[in-house]
């Protein structure tokens, strides 16, 4: 009994496991770095093929893309410029606004659809009609509807993530095993207990799946919207405008810099979601 009492302070995941995880992660890190290095080398070689073997040897496609070393030089060129960093800030702010709004409205909406039949009967049909419309198809209408460009970008971004999050939350909550609810009911759970102790935690995995997919869509939508709306005049450009601008200016290297920046930004966001998922769902770490 003494053992039991003491071990209750220990964390749910035993130490051995953590070490193993670390080891495995390092292993993955090593493979990941190798893969990126090899990829960069091949890219460098591919785009410099004509420089090595003569003009006739320009490879289709990759031969026209600037090599990573040139991109790195261009990157070093823009790094000290505040404009580049403001692009990051602008895009991040837009992504976060749309994403958080979609989470804040989408999660309760999805849960309501799942638990209340009347609510579902009323709101699910219109939701299902609006859902297949791609976010970018909303752009013209929202440019007319909202007073500022910034607001229409925010709105379209929000829509992109909202539908995905709602449909995931709904699906997740509806597939919770009825035996969990019944077991809880037998033990005297109230409606609120069922919701907060079974339905909500049971839906968490789907919420995080929805968030991860929604985050990806949000970035797509923000960048496309930044390019379409031309960004510059109101509220500042963002990374989408940075790429558009580089295209207009004819700087191939800067286009690639912009693209890779977006890749990194997206990676940071999905890592954050993964980390939060691990934090909030310790039982899922065991899979």
């Amino acid at each position: 009994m003494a053992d039991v009492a003491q071990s209750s302070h220990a964390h749910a995941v035993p130490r051995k496991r953590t070490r193993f995880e670390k080891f495995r992660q390092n292993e993955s890190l090593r493979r990941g770095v190798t893969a990126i290095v090899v990829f960069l080398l091949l890219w460098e070689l591919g785009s410099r093929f004509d420089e090595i073997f003569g003009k006739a040897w320009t490879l289709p496609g990759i031969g026209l893309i600037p090599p990573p070393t040139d991109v790195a030089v261009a990157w070093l060129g823009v790094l000290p410029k505040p404009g580049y960093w403001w692009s990051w800030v602008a895009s991040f702010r837009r992504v976060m606004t749309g994403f958080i709004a979609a989470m804040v409205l989408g999660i309760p909406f999805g849960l309501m659809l799942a638990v209340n039949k009347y609510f579902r009967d009323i709101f699910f049909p219109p939701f299902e009609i609006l859902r297949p419309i791609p976010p970018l198809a909303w752009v013209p209408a929202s440019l007319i509807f909202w007073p500022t460009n910034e607001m229409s970008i925010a709105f379209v971004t929000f829509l992109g993530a909202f539908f995905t999050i709602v449909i995931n939350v709904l699906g997740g909550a509806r597939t919770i095993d009825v035996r969990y609810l019944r077991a809880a009911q037998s033990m005297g759970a109230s409606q609120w207990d069922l919701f907060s102790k079974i339905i909500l935690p049971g839906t968490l995995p789907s919420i995080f799946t929805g968030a991860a997919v929604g985050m990806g869509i949000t970035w797509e939508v923000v960048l496309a919207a930044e390019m379409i709306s031309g960004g510059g005049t109101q509220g500042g450009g963002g990374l989408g405008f940075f790429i558009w601008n580089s295209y207009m200016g004819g700087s191939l290297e800067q286009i690639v810099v912009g693209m890779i920046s977006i890749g990194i930004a997206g990676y940071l966001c999905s890592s954050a979601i993964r980390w939060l998922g691990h934090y909030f769902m310790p039982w899922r770490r065991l899979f």
Partner: protein
Amino acid sequence: MDAVSPEGRVNLNMDGQPSTEADWAVGKSTVEIKNVSKAYGDEWDLDQVITNLDVTVAPGELTVIVGPSGCGKSTLVNLIAGFEQPDTGEVLLDGKIVTGPARDRMVVFQETALIPWQTTYQNVVFGPKLRGDLKGKALKAEAERLLVKVGLGEFVHKYPIQLSGGMQRRAELARALINNPNIMIMDEPFRGLDAMSRGLMQEFFLRLFEENRRTNLFVTSEIDEAIFLADSLVILSNKPASVRKVIKIDLPRPRDYKMLSSPEAYEYKREAMEILHEEAMKNFAADADSGDFAESFRKR
């Protein structure tokens, strides 16, 4: 299985403080199922699962229900637990009509129903915590006592997925027992365990029952298991289920596995097998096509 220790049992008085009384006052409910019928589906596509079923689960007895797979055993469990309502007839618990689930009837489900996002300990204290009828130190002590009793003292802070099948079943027993129900309902609790752990679990469960003889309804499709455990063996017909026969199993308690090879046990088995075989043949002769097989496989 040394998990069943003859340790002094803790009783709790109104303040939730352990008192010195020797044993729980284990409630021994009677369940009467009177002329119950239940169907699923719509009027034009009615799936009659139970017809005119009469059974009494006597207080302090271990009543075992056996029946062919898919005959409606789980449906019957759902009716007694109050998860579903019968179409006709009534389910009475100590003379009162069952209208919904309550803590006086605890169900151990067919597959594990431990809540995956709660540790073993959290699963066990779930009920008392919800109701607030057992708190703080008293709750912790009681939960730990039960977990040690079912042999899970070392696995208190593991998640269900980290437990083996047998451990999950025992954790579920502890989760049900802490609510001190008046009747335990077990729906094929040991299905899916390998033969070895199944045997061990049966013996363990029998010790648990013989300790205080809490009214118990045990559903199985395994005839040896049924005879080993039962005071009273209820054999169901094919779907739609009704009672084919009730056999009193007069083997002495405490029982052990060797008794299964005694002539008396053999005679019970022969009698039960004959009826079950008859029922199975009926099903086979009536309309056994591959569709039925696929159906019962899916519903397994």
